[in-house]
């Protein structure tokens, strides 16, 4: 080998690492959270996502997060969705059905990973769970049949209840199936359902007041963003009017709600990190299946039960994954 060939090889070797460095530009991930900024649950979820990103190989440098908090407000969801699409990040992580619904019409190119979205196939966000098809994939939550589970649990805790007020936002995509299911199975539990429109705090307050005025009953709180954001309002009203209430997320019961049955949302956020990383490294969202939750939990708040003067039956306690004393 001639000397200058050797030199050329050495020079090439020296040049190579720089070219490799140039490839790892800073990636941006947009995050739309359905909670209000500062909300404890929202922060915990975001932290879980960050942690999972890091575990999946993103160092702090090459995946910057752009976080927006929609605070359960449909208007904010729309405006932040626009802002997010305008920012054109490499991936958007969206929490909640409302945010996803706002994003879907705005872009068909930016990959979107949703977390905690009810019934994505039914709402038309993806073609199928196994092969989502478009630029969207993520982690779905409730199957409509869980509605029956909620009524069952509520009936078990408060057997006298025949009237259930369902806190529901009819405008929010994806939740109607839940509502329909609840309405359908209610008679089998000797109950009838009353829809309470809840799109904002005043509506929640007025709706519950009106429901109470209509007679005794219990509440079923659907997993709409506003219900989670305004959970403290609901807790307070339920306590004041001595309404037994069924909640969709464990943290609801942990923070004061009577009983909650649902999946572990934090786990979904943990699983979102690897998905985002896979999309950043070039995989198509169309080929990444939508994952359903595997772990469900029943959380019972005895303090709330005592406040309502309710005795939790042993079957429920046996099932409960967590009992708040």
């Amino acid at each position: 080998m001639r000397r200058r060939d050797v030199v050329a090889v050495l020079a090439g070797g020296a040049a190579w690492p720089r070219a490799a460095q140039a490839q790892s530009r800073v990636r941006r991930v947009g995050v739309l959270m359905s909670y209000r900024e500062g909300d404890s649950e929202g922060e915990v979820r975001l932290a879980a996502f960050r942690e999972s990103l890091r575990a999946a190989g993103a160092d702090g440098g090459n995946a910057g997060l752009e976080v927006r908090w929609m605070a359960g407000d449909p208007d904010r969801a729309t405006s932040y969705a626009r802002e997010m699409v305008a920012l054109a990040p490499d991936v958007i992580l969206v929490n909640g059905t409302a945010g996803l619904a706002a994003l879907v019409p705005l872009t068909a190119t930016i990959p979107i990973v949703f977390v905690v979205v009810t019934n994505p196939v039914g709402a038309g966000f993806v073609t199928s769970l196994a092969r989502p098809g478009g630029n969207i994939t993520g982690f779905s939550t409730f199957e409509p049949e869980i509605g029956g589970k909620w009524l069952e649990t509520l009936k078990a805790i408060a057997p006298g209840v025949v009237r259930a007020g369902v806190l529901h936002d009819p405008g929010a995509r994806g939740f109607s199936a839940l509502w329909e299911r609840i309405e359908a199975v209610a008679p089998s539990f000797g109950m009838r359902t009353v829809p309470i429109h809840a799109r904002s705090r005043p509506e929640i307050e007025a709706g519950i007041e009106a429901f109470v005025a209509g007679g005794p009953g219990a509440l079923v709180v659907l997993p709409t963003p506003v219900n989670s954001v305004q959970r403290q309002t609901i807790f307070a009203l339920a306590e004041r009017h001595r309404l037994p209430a069924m909640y969709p997320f464990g943290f609801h019961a942990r923070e004061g709600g009577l009983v909650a049955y649902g999946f572990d949302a934090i786990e979904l956020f943990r699983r979102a990190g690897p998905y985002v990383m896979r999309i950043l490294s070039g995989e198509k969202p169309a080929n990444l299946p939508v994952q359903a939750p595997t772990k469900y939990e029943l959380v019972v708040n005895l303090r709330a039960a005592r406040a309502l003067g309710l005795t939790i039956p042993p079957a429920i306690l046996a099932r409960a994954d967590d009992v708040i004393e």
Partner: protein
Amino acid sequence: MSVVGTATGPALPAEAARPLPGTRLRMPLAAKLAAALIGLVTLVLLVNGAINLWLSYQEAKTAAVSVQQEKAHAAAERIGQFVAEIENQMGWTTRAEWRRVPLEQQRYDFIRLLRQAPAITEISYLDAAGKEQLKVSRLEPDAVGSQIDLSGEPKFLRAIAEKSWFGPVYLRRGSEPYMTIAVAHAGRNPGVTVAEVNLKLIWDVITAIRIGQKGYAFVVNSQGRLIAHPDLSLVLRDTDLSRLPQVASALAGVPGQSNAAEIVEAQDGARVLSAHAPIARLRWLVFVQLPVKEALAPVYTSLAQTAALLGLGLLLASVAGTYLARRMVVPIRRLQDGAERLGGGDLSERITIRTGDEIETLAVRFNQMASRIQESHETLEAKVVERTRDLNETLQQQTATADVLKVISRSAFDLDAVFKTVIESAAHLCGSNRALIYLKDGEVFRPAAGFGVSPEFWAVMESNPMRPERGTFVGRTILERGPIHVPDVDADPEFTFTEASRVGRFKSILCVPLLREGDPIGVLALSRPAAGPFTARQISLVTTFADQAVIAIENARLFDEVQARTAELSESLQQQTATADVLKVISRSAFNLDVVLTTLVESAARLCEAEKGVIFLRQGGHFGLCANVGFSAEFETFARANPFPFDRGSTTMRAAASGGAVQVVDVLADESRSALAREYQRLGGYRTNLGVPLMREGEPIGVFTLTRQVVRPFTERQIELVQTFADQAVIAIQNARLFEEVKERTAELQQSLDDLRKAQDRLVQSEKLASLGQLTAGIAHEIKNPLNFVNNFSLLSADLIDELRQVLEPASLDERAREEVDELTGMLKGNLEKVVQHGKRADSIVKNMLLHSREGVGEHRPVEVNAIVEESMNLAYHGARAEKPSFNVTLRRELDPATGEADLYPQEITRVLLNLFSNSFYAATKRKAELDGAFDPTITATTRNLGDRVEIRVRDNGTGIPEDVKAKMFNPFFTTKPAGEGTGLGLSLSHDIVVKQHGGTIEVASSPGQFTEFTITLPRAGAATAAAKRGA
């Protein structure tokens, strides 16, 4: 090592061009030796390394494979355990007595089971009849006693039959993999506990199995469908891996038997070491895969080590081989170098090698051979040198001769170059340091060219021209007319020109004459600083050179002659061309004298190389500037203002006076100049001038002067040329004068032609009128008779009416009848009077018509024109007043007393004048009537003497005649007066009388609303001439 024979040029001898055997570039011995040595070592090392590598590779692979195999078994076991665990958990509910436990307790048990086995999503209890009794689900409301008949389902039948049954994997919502596990209860008539297990939970197990760094495990079912994989998304997508080669081969193999690991491609295309183990109960296969790179890492390490060893071995072998080869090759190389030098002709070279072996012996033989060759070579060389010198000399001489001839033929007309070549070549060939050529110059011979001649020697030779004498060698050569060869100058007794030999310091000399037709025209002399003879060859060579020099001299002479002749011809051609050009210009602009003269001066100045030039032309007693080329405006202005007087104070005037060309070479040196000439010179600034007179019929009419700003005389030829140009100027001036005359004459002729045309027009008019006159005369005769009848009988009838009245006077008629008769007769009489009146008018027309045809009525005689005009005017006036007493007009007479008499028909002319006057009165009166009195009608009669003719004008300030009327007014019967007032024959008749009868003219000038003027011109002998013409 040399590269002999690879780059032989075509100039080398043929022997050298042929490659010498064995000296072609080929692999050197050293390289061969080294290659052999290195090759041997490399071969050994390579074989050794390859065997080593093969063995270690096989070993590592076997090890890796067995490890993989074990891992696969372990993994299979773990998965099996996972399922077995679930089955175990279900054992709670499958005790024989469980069916008798209260429903609430059973439900508790199920709830507990769900809590303990997170993979179970739904669990149900079927009684012995296959009816669902209890179902607890994580997702749906619990069902108690639903009694759904599931007795036909495999999960019931197979469980009863096989105790426990693992259903096939199925997908919920097309995505989540699930499996049914059914376990039959103990005892008789057993029920079945059925669990729906979410296989996603296997993920936890599968990801916990660590296979090396990057290895992983996955599970497929008996159809090759993926059940568990670290990448959950592959599972959720329901991936079919049955086409993957390792899966396919495993599925094809005997179930329950694990195959050896193999290297295959994974589904992502990477090469992996794959092993699998079955889970017999589930008929699943667990695969573990490890990237080959990782599995065979030890083999690669070993390969690297072997390669490093090989490299080191090669290096060592190279070093050792090279060293040994060099050691051996050095003496051989030295031998080769020595042989090469011998081959290259260096025969004094001896090879020294002290190796004490065959190579040394070879060297000694070489040395002996070289000595022999050297001996024979030296004798040969001496002979060759001699021959070569001989040949060289001849060649050199021939070459020089050829060169000289070449130079002579090339530069035949450049004598200096020829001489230079001749003497240089001669000196060179004869070994002389000096050579000279002498050429005949009148009676003596002078040096013309030299080679190696110092300036002093040249000066001596220049100042001492050679004569035919024996005291000098050149002189002696001239006398002898043959070569003189003196080997030792000092020993020559006749030599007297010692100054030459002293300055020139020559000891031997050779002189050869240049002979033309036997006469010497020059000498070629060669000398040497040392005494010694010139060879016969040299002498003959120099003689040849001398002959060539003679030919060259001849050629040069002829060439010069031709050259001179050609120059002469071309100069005259140029001048002729210029002259022709000038003549062309002159002929083109013949009548523009200024242009012609300026052209002449310009051309002459250019051809004669004069900066400026002028032409003076005679103007009375002076000569003034006429054409100027090159002189300033100031000069021109001065010259025009101050023409030369006819004296001899200037070159120009001297030329004019002498009648021939005068040249003053330096004007400033001319003391006899006049003050005016000095002023001319001061403004013009010229030094040399030339004046050539322009002579016409021996008289100077001008001077052609050319000047030069520097003192430089005009040549004879130039003066001749200027004279030619001067002649041309004279001709041009003449032409211009003739042209002017021709122009005048032409104008005169044009005038005559115009007059002639007018006369012709008049003649045409006259003829027209004459023919009309004859026609009307004929008609008038025919009308005259009937008219007489009409007139006479109407007069008679009028008288008869009177008679009728008288007859009826006494008749007894009543009052009414009488009144009617009176009225009728009165009317008849009135009618007849009108007939008479108009008859008379017709009669007068006919009379006038007859007058037209009449010729030469009355006698013609000389008449006082003024008198006849006066008379006619008065007559007309009184006539008009008689007709109309209110008529008044101012009459003016402007009669030229010199008018005198003319030969006329007085009555006829009176008629004409009366006619004109009455027309004038009519027009003036009409105008007065139009202007309603504020107008003074004036009629003017004028006469004038025109020598042989007389002019009469009648002018009025009346209405004037419009243009269209003017053209027709002389036609018969044309009138502008109201019907009955004019006959239309007045002017027609007047024209007839004046033109035809008297040979005069009648013309009218008029301006409507201003005036009308008739002009009659009558030749004094008009009537006589006209009559004579008619007679002729």
